[in-house]
C-alpha cells in the first residue's frame, strides 16, 4: 500500500493524463453510435505517429533541453521511407532498417552538436530541423511515393488482417482484433524505452536533468548519456516517420506539418507529466499526452448538435478548445505557487 502511494505521488502527472484521457474517450465512445474495434483501430492509427514523436521529444526534455527537430526528422524519414518500402520482403525490411539507422544517426548528429559543440539543444535542433526539412525536400520535391499497397494495408490494420493479407493465419478470435499500431507502440516501449530507462545511461539522463553538476560530480558519464538520449530521440522520430509512411502510403515534405508535430509533441510531453526543466517524467506519459490531444479532436467529430454540448458542435472550435485545455492543464500545476510560504523556492 505504501509503495503504491509513493508510486502515485511520483507519477501524479501520468495518472492525471490517463484520467483525462479516459474521461475524454468515454465521452467519445458514448456519443458514437457504432463504437467498435474498427473505431479503436482508426483512432490508434491517428494516435501512433504523434505518440512516437512525443516519445522522441520526451528524451531530450528529460535532459532539460528541447528538440525542435523531431517533427522535421519524422518528415525526412517519411520521405526517405516512401522511396524504399516496396518490393519483396527483404527489400522492405532493408528499407525499414535503413530508415531507423538514418533516424538514429541524425539523432546522434544532434547529440554531437549539443555535446561537443556545446550549443544549447533548442537552438541546435532548430538549425538541424531546417537541414532535415531541406533533405526531405531534396528526396521528395513533390508529395508521392511507391509504398507497397498490401504492406501499407496489412501493417496498419488489426492482427487478423495481417494474416489474411499474406495468408499466414485465419481468424484468431478476439486476439486478432487487437490493432497493430497499438502492438507496435507497446513493442517499442517494452523493447526500447523500458530497457533504456533501466540502464545506467538512461538513469544518467534523469540525473542530468535534475542537476547536471551533481551528476557530473557523481561520476555519471554525462556525454554518453546525452549522446544516447538524442540518438534515442532520433530512433523514435524515425519510427514515427516509418509509421506515417505506412499510414499515408506516401511521402510529403510538408514543413508546416512538421512544425505542428513538433509543437504538439511538446504539449503532449507536458500533459503527460514530464517537467520541461528535466529530470522527471517519461515516455509512457508522453504517449498518454498524445492520446489526450488526439481524443479532443475525436470528440469534435461526434458531438451531437442537439445535446448539452451542442454549442461545441462546430469543428471550427477545435483549436480553441485544444489550446484552452492545454492552458488549463498546465495552469492546474500552478496550484503550488499559491501554497508556498517563501517565494524564493519558486526560483529554481
Amino acid at each position, binding site marked *: 500500500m505504501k509503495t503504491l502511494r509513493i508510486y502515485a505521488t511520483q507519477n501524479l502527472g501520468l495518472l492525471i493524463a490517463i484520467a483525462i484521457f479516459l474521461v475524454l474517450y468515454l465521452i467519445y465512445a458514448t456519443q458514437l453510435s457504432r463504437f467498435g474495434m474498427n473505431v479503436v483501430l482508426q483512432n490508434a492509427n491517428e494516435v501512433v505517429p504523434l505518440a512516437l514523436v512525443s516519445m522522441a521529444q520526451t528524451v531530450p526534455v528529460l535532459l532539460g533541453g528541447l528538440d525542435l527537430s523531431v517533427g522535421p526528422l519524422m518528415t525526412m524519414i517519411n520521405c526517405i521511407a516512401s522511396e524504399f518500402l516496396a518490393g519483396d520482403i527483404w527489400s522492405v525490411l532493408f528499407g525499414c532498417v535503413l530508415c531507423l539507422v538514418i533516424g538514429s544517426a541524425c539523432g546522434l548528429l544532434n547529440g554531437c552538436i549539443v555535446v561537443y*559543440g556545446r550549443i544549447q539543444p*533548442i537552438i541546435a535542433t*532548430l538549425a538541424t530541423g531546417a537541414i532535415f526539412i*531541406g533533405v526531405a*525536400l531534396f528526396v521528395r520535391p513533390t508529395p508521392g511515393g511507391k509504398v507497397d499497397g498490401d504492406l501499407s494495408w496489412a501493417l496498419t490494420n488489426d492482427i487478423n488482417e495481417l494474416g489474411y493479407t499474406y495468408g499466414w493465419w485465419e481468424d484468431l478470435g478476439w486476439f486478432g482484433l487487437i490493432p497493430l499500431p497499438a502492438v507496435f507502440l507497446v513493442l517499442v516501449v517494452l523493447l526500447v524505452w523500458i530497457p533504456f530507462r533501466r540502464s545506467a545511461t538512461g538513469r544518467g539522463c534523469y540525473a542530468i536533468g535534475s542537476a*547536471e553538476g551533481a551528476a557530473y560530480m557523481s561520476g555519471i558519464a554525462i556525454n554518453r548519456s546525452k549522446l544516447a538520449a538524442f540518438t534515442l530521440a532520433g530512433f523514435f522520430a524515425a519510427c514515427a516517420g516509418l509509421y506515417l509512411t505506412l499510414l499515408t502510403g506516401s511521402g510529403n515534405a510538408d514543413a508546416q506539418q512538421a512544425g505542428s508535430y513538433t509543437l504538439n509533441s511538446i504539449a503532449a510531453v507536458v500533459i503527460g507529466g514530464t517537467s520541461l526543466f528535466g529530470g522527471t517524467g517519461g515516455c509512457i506519459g508522453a504517449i498518454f499526452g498524445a492520446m489526450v490531444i488526439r481524443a479532443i479532436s475525436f470528440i469534435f467529430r461526434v458531438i451531437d448538435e442537439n445535446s448539452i454540448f451542442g454549442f461545441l458542435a462546430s469543428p*471550427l472550435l477545435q483549436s480553441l478548445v485544444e489550446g484552452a485545455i492545454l492552458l488549463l492543464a*498546465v495552469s492546474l500545476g500552478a496550484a503550488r505557487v499559491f501554497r508556498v510560504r517563501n517565494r524564493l523556492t519558486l526560483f529554481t
Partner: protein
Amino acid sequence: MSSATTRMGIDKPILIAGAFVIVILLVGSAYTLATQGTLSFLSPTYLLQQLQIASFLGITAAGMMMVILLGHIDLSVPWTLSAAAMLATAVGGPAAVPVGLGVGLVVGLFNGLGVAYLRVPSMIFTLGVNTVLMGLMVILTGGFAPQSAATDLMLFFGRDRTFGIPHAVILWIAVSVAIVFILNRTPLGRYMYAIGNREAATYLSGVNTRLVIICSFVICSLCAAIAGLLLAGYSSRAFQAMGDEYLLPSIAAVVLGGTHILGGRGKYLGTVIGAVLIVLLQSVLSVMQMPEAGRQIIYGAVIILMLLVYGRGDKLRA
C-alpha cells in the same frame, strides 16, 4: 578586443555576423558579375528592398529578444502577429491600428501574467496561447481567408516610401531606438539582464521581478503586433498563418546576434544584424536559383557553424 569597440557595444558575435553579411553580399555579387555582368546586389534599390523585408523579421526579433534575455521564450508570436493583422484589417478605418496594437497588449499581458504569477514554463504557456489565438481567428474568419484589405495607415508604413526609403525601415529604426533606450538607459533594462542571470538574486535585491517579466512579454507581443500590421500593409491584406514563418527565424536572429538562449547576455545590435543576415542569406540564395531544399540546408548549416564559432557554452567543471 579593444576597449573602443567594446564601448560602442560591438562584441565578437556582432563582428563575425557582420563580416558574414558582407561575405554573403560579396559572394552574391561575384555570382551576378559572372552570370549577368552586373552588381545588382550592391545597388541601393536592392539593399533597401531587403531592409524593408528584414524590418518585419527585425521588429519581431527585437520583441523576441526581450523575452529571451529573461531566459524565457514566446511561442505565441506567430498568431499574435496574424491576429493583430487580421483583426486590424477586419475592423478597418482609423481604429485598425489601435485594435492591432491592442491585440498585442492583451496577449502580452496574458502571457506575462501566466509566466510571472502562475510560473508555468513560458515555452508551454505561450504555446497554449498560440493555439487559442489560432482557434479564435479560425472562428472569426470561419476558416477562410479574410476578405478585408489593409487601411491607408498600414499601407503608408508597410509599403510606401519617402525618397526611396521604405517607411517600414524607418519604423524599425524607431523601434530599435526605443529598445536600446529601454535596455541601456532604464532600470527595466538592467532588471531584464539581471533576471536572465539569476532571478532569485534579482528578487532578493528588491526588484519586482513579476512586473519586469510582464513588461517583457508585453513588449514582445507589441513588437509582433507591429510587425503584423506592417506585413499586412506590405502585402495589402492579412491572411491565415501569415506569422508562421516568423517564429523560428526570429529566435535564430536573436541567437545569431550573440544573445544567450538561456538569457542574461546579449546586445541589441546583434539582433539587428542577425535579422539582416537571415533575410539576405535567403534572398541571395534564391537569386542564385538555389532550390528550396538547398536553401534550408544552407540556412541550418550556417546557424550551426556560426554558433560553433562564437555561441558555445561553458565546459562542465567540478
